[in-house]
């Protein structure tokens, strides 16, 4: 696991949810600037039914990422999301830590 920063195996959880018949998406931090709380490689697994495992921030952007994940599950297309203080959305979602982060969201097919 990258950085071994978390004992939780997010991919295993995602696979288990998928096997149980859930719609699942995986979000991964792919780039960070400044004081982002989670390093590149950090993952969040999301189900359409609302389950979350892992994290891509200190909790500030998980809600917005989950919304995007549900879009990706519906469309089947991945998305590259940008969060940061230069971005209007960052204020909406409250990335108050002053960092910037790019998150890749992909449905598990």
């Amino acid at each position, binding site marked *: 696991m*990258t950085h071994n920063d*978390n*004992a939780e195996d997010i991919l295993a959880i995602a*696979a288990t949810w998928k096997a149980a018949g859930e719609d699942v998406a995986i979000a991964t931090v792919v*780039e960070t600037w400044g004081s982002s709380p989670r390093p590149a490689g950090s993952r969040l697994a999301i189900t359409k039914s609302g389950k979350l495992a892992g994290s891509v921030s200190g909790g500030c952007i998980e809600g917005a990422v989950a919304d995007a994940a549900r879009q990706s599950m519906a469309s089947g297309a991945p998305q590259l999301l940008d969060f940061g203080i230069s971005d209007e959305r960052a204020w909406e979602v409250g990335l108050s830590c002053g960092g910037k982060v790019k998150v890749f969201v992909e449905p598990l*097919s």
Partner: protein
Amino acid sequence: MKGATLARLQAERAAKRPAVLLTRLSDGAQMLWPGDDMPEALVEASKAALGSEEAGNVTLGDETWFIHPHNPPLRIIVVGAVHIAQAMAPMAAPLGFAMVVVDPRRAFASEERLPGVTLSTDWPDEAMAALAPDARTAVVTLTHDPKLDDPALDAALKSEAFYIGALGSRRTHAKRVARLTELGHNAEAMGRIHAPVGLNIEAITAPEIALSIMAEIVAARRGAALGAVRPIPGVAA
């Protein structure tokens, strides 16, 4: 991510083999290294990512690929299923370490005393040969018994273990150094052994000693420069 790609990646991880997941950010296309054919630049980026353990982006022409390394877990081999090992066990997993406890004394090495920990009741020389410590392994001896500790230290010193620690006082350690020297280990090898084991936090209880050992292992893994004492605010030197 395709289910098949996820299954392949999980199989590599389950087999404790290093693997890199490469994702093209424009469309989500994915490859695994080793395994899939890819341009040399991406192979090099994959190897570099496994070495640095850092995920990041590489641009190839007008394509950006996210290079995500998955190294096998770090390991801690503890010799001696003693009270300190019991206190280390619940700290190891959250810090990213798989812990193995070696103790041929079956009364100590029991599932009951160490739930969820991989146990070996082989003699330490045999156990170490089977476990084959590598550069992602820490070895800690806790038994105080040269019959058990010395063979483990001997094997650890012959390996690339990134951390070797041995419980015992300075006097105990001096005797240990003499014995290991007789086995053919030189002064440089002796310098690899952290003894007395653990950061000096004036630990007394088993959980405190476990904390000091785990902190020293993390410091070794992260390459922290230790030794400088931080001044305590408000206390005159």
